């Protein structure tokens, strides 16, 4: 389905040219360990930028999670999402209440993929993230062996503010923090606010 021998794809080149996407591994090293990268979400470019900041070997095995209502629309977006990024589409609308939107994520994790998620669920207007939704907590609980890596995308909110179509070139850095461990019997709220604090802490790193 995807080709790990592919050279730098045009989308990676373009992303690096436009916004830099320079990785800074602060709290962990790039490794093939199965991980969930979770980050602040300020622009449509976040998914591509975080993905492009990973080394090529890791990109092949890392799937961004993206909203079906945005990425499944239009041939170009679908081509980027499905062919290049190999995204896991998540249904934000939940038409069918018995259907759990996290199921495709569970499938991907069970087959050994790492994931990129934006736990705020939607883009926020400021650089610092708003409250996290609970998906990160559930996945962390069900897959305890998967490392939960906080990521802070710096400067990207300036490149493509909400509602704008064209990105302004800038240089953004992608900061990877120390994996957040879930404590024994930790409450959902407690864990989520700790995870959010880990992303915020990276903004000052």
């Amino acid at each position, binding site marked *: 389905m995807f080709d790990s021998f592919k050279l730098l794809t045009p989308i990676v080149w373009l992303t690096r040219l436009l916004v*830099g996407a320079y990785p*800074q591994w602060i709290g962990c090293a790039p490794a093939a360990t199965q991980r969930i990268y979770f980050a602040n979400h300020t622009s449509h470019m976040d998914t591509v930028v975080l993905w492009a900041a990973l080394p090529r070997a890791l990109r092949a095995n890392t799937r961004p999670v993206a909203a079906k209502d945005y990425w499944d629309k239009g041939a170009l977006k679908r081509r980027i999402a499905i062919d290049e990024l190999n995204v896991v589409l998540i249904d934000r609308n939940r038409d069918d209440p018995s259907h759990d939107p996290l199921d495709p994520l569970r499938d991907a994790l069970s087959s050994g993929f790492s994931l990129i998620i934006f736990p705020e669920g939607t883009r926020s207007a400021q650089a610092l993230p708003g409250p996290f939704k609970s998906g990160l907590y559930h996945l962390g609980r069900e897959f305890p062996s998967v490392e939960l890596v906080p990521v802070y995308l*710096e*400067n990207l909110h300036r490149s493509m*503010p909400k509602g704008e179509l064209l990105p*302004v*070139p*800038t*240089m953004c850095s992608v900061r990877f923090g120390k994996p957040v461990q879930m404590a024994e019997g930790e409450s959902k709220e407690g864990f989520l606010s700790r995870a959010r604090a880990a992303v915020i802490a990276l903004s000052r790193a």
Partner: protein
Amino acid sequence: MRLGLSANEAYLLILAGLVLFSAAATAYGQWLLGHASDGAKQQRIAIVNSRVRASWSLILIFAVAFALGQPGLLVVFAFSSFLALREFIALTPTKASDHWALVIAFYAVIPIQYLLIGFDQYQIFSLFIPVYVFLLLPVLMALRQDTERYLERVAKVQWGLMISVFCVSHAGAIMALEVPRFQSSGQLLLLFFLLVVYFSDLLEVMASALLGGTPLRSNANKTRKGVFAGGLGAVLIGASLWWLTPFRFWQAILMSGAIVVAGFMGGLVLSSVKRSLGARRWDTEIVLTRGALDRLDSLIFAAPVFYQLTVFFFL
């Protein structure tokens, strides 16, 4: 062309000389680095080595200018302008309401400026950013009705464009100058200009590392003694290349001197700009800035100065 060479022969001769110099200097620098005893010395050598490595991008520029002519050269400089402006804007605290002004700056101003040079519109090219864009940008930003720090934001975008597009583009324009005196050419003039710019920076850093002294406040890699000695060395190199140019020997000395002084001033000004935009990032680990401005800093002021002097006195 003096010394009995044709323009092409002279160009290739210099290019070959530069390749030999770069190869030898790169190898020697690596050898020195491996044999340096203490850390401080290693650090000084590493700084000089990084400047030596920059000569390879110079060689690339010369090769492109020779093989593809002015269009290829303009693409290279347009790309440099893009990277420099990207860096400048990344350091500048812009707001979401500046978005359209920035979109225009990147996607319209850069290509238009270089197209004007490519199509020989010299009158407009030197007015485009200082006049037309100067008038257009504040209008675009005023239309968004966000007056918070308005003047500051407009001024910063305009400055970014002047520094990274207007000034840098003059280097590409040098190649199009028609300077028939002594059978010189724009291509050779560009060679002369970039070599003096490059060697002034390299020799200043090298002399600073060798002679020591108190580091400059604007640039920790240079000392006052080093700047004088290195600058003098660059003037000598420029003078020894007089036969490439439309200048007489004494004129080549003065022109090289102008390039060296302007280059130094450019470094001084840009270091102040960077400090005022957020010195924090420059003192600590530099990640946001991959040094496009650092690499261009001596060229940025020297290019318009050299261009204007040549136009004024020799055209």
